[in-house]
């Protein structure tokens, strides 16, 4: 049995990243896509925290992680406001319906 090390965290983060990519490419619901984005952001956070713990020892990675959590919140806030606006005019947040602009 090996102990849990940096590699495990990185692999978990990579898995989260791939799941996030898949979610955002396959989901048709706008909020689903946003959740995919959150997954990727959390993968990044996981990376940062793990690197700080196992490699650098400095605090700045964790600071970045905190900021990214903050950014995710801000992004979600504005994204959901825009989804609401979209919903107001189309009564749906299915992104496939956003096809007026094309070509």
């Amino acid at each position, binding site marked *: 049995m090996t102990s849990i090390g940096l590699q495990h965290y990185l692999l978990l983060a990579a898995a989260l990243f791939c799941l996030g990519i898949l979610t955002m490419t396959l989901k048709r619901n706008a909020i689903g896509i946003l959740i995919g*984005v959150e997954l990727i952001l959390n993968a990044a956070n996981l990376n940062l925290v*793990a690197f700080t713990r196992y490699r650098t020892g400095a605090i700045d990675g964790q600071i970045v992680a905190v900021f990214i959590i903050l950014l995710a919140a801000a*992004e979600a806030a504005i994204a959901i406001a825009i989804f609401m*606006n*979209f919903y107001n005019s189309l009564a749906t947040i299915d992104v496939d319906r956003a096809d*007026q*602009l094309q070509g």
Partner: protein
Amino acid sequence: MLLAIANSFWMPDLDAVVAIGPLWGLAGTIVAIVLAALVLGRSAAVSSVITIIGATLTAWICFTHAPRVAQSAWAGLAPAGGSPMLLVDNFAILFILLICLFLACVTGLWMIGASTNARESAAHLRNGPEFFVLLVGSAFGMALMVSTTNLLMIILAIEMASLPSYAIVGFQKRNRIAAEASLKYVLFGAVTSALMAYGISLLYGFYGTLDVNEIGRLVSTELAATDTPAAAKALISVALFGLMAGIGFKISAVPFHFWCPDVFEGASIEVTTWLSVASKAAGLGLLLRIIAAVLQPLAETFDNPLSTTVAMFAAVTCTVGNLAAFPQTSVKRLLAYSSIAHAGYMLMAGAIIWQAKPGSDVANPAFAALIVYIIVYLFMNLGAFGCTALVYWATGSEKIEAFRGLGRRSPLIAAAMTVCLFSLVGLPPFGGFIAKFYLLMALFKSNLVWLVAVALLNSIFSLYFYSRIAYAMYFADDGKPAFSVPAFGRALVIAAAIVILLTGIPIAGGLIGRANQFASHLYPIAARTTFAEPQAAAAKDPIPLAARSAP
């Protein structure tokens, strides 16, 4: 106790506060708009005037700031002994100056739009303060983008620039098209920023630092130390491309360009104008910084596949932009594709800079060409979008058909539009030609002949669709009545056209010469990192900007 803690992180001495002066200018503008809305009531006119004053004031601060930077050889804000979080050097000042100038122009355009009767929504006017807070907020984010080399600040700056942009794209709340555009924009932006965050987390892990210059220094030593260089290189590339996704989104490089035409078409025209230039200029500024700091040393260890990749990137972006513009019927959308194509041209300069050694005969002209390109591009797009806006407000349509007979219906607007269009193609004697000429010369010098060929071929393609508008204006008159446009609007587009003409021949040499001098000082400025060595840096880079601009 508290003070000691604060001091250990940050030294709030006056020098450091003054050092980031231009950023204070923009931040102060936001505060002023909010305060004015609270005190004087919610008036769009007041907000717009404050925005213009704030932008002008910030530009003035930039001018006064530049000599000070050169004197103290330092401009920034950093934790004690650490690497800088904010770096307002001459490079940043140039871009902030451009952004402020453009901010004032776009606000002017907005005022013209607000004054024409065609403006449909009174709501738009009613929410003026919010609009300008968001607009200046995105300008502030862009200013941050060009004045940092710290990965955390890069994320924050890009988000600071993006979040208000999402909101102003969808600002016309009852407009279905705008809602769709902002939806696409926000989703795309969120995805690319997530990719970027992931890339940055990897970079941080590999090198244990957030400072881009530090990473640049570590790149070669780390690679030499590792026993699996291929894997390490692959990982670095992936991490870097994650970072590039964020920037690629901002400058709408292929394959991160899909949002661009849709958003540009859906947003109101001032917003489109704003995004088409300012967002791209800021993205390119950031890209240049990263290239100068990291990618350049990286390219040396990589034997150049990265450079080729960027060149391919540029070529594809340029070609896609130009070809997709062919079948467009809406001028706004056509100009959106054109802006993708121009991002491609500008990326080409990135391909050389990436390849060349700092301060070399090749890199400096490439930098200089890029700076000139951005300046000229700013005016070309301002003119082209300004004319489109004037036509839209007068006729209610932004299709090419709306331009029919413009040469008769509004000769001055048509003339200004023609100047802008042919300058966008890159025909002499307009500024666009000079910009493209120096860019292609730089490419040629660095033996990227195939890229020159691609650029030339693309320019020929682009002639076709730009001249479709010119053709409509002068040869396809459908007898619609003449219209008059607001005098201020006419003045704006004519001023843009005059600047393009001036940069074409009369002052082209001076411009490129200044840019060259500027570029030759870019590397030492960008590479300067710690608070501890300003004196040494001053000795290395003794030529202050004030002295440079002396005749």
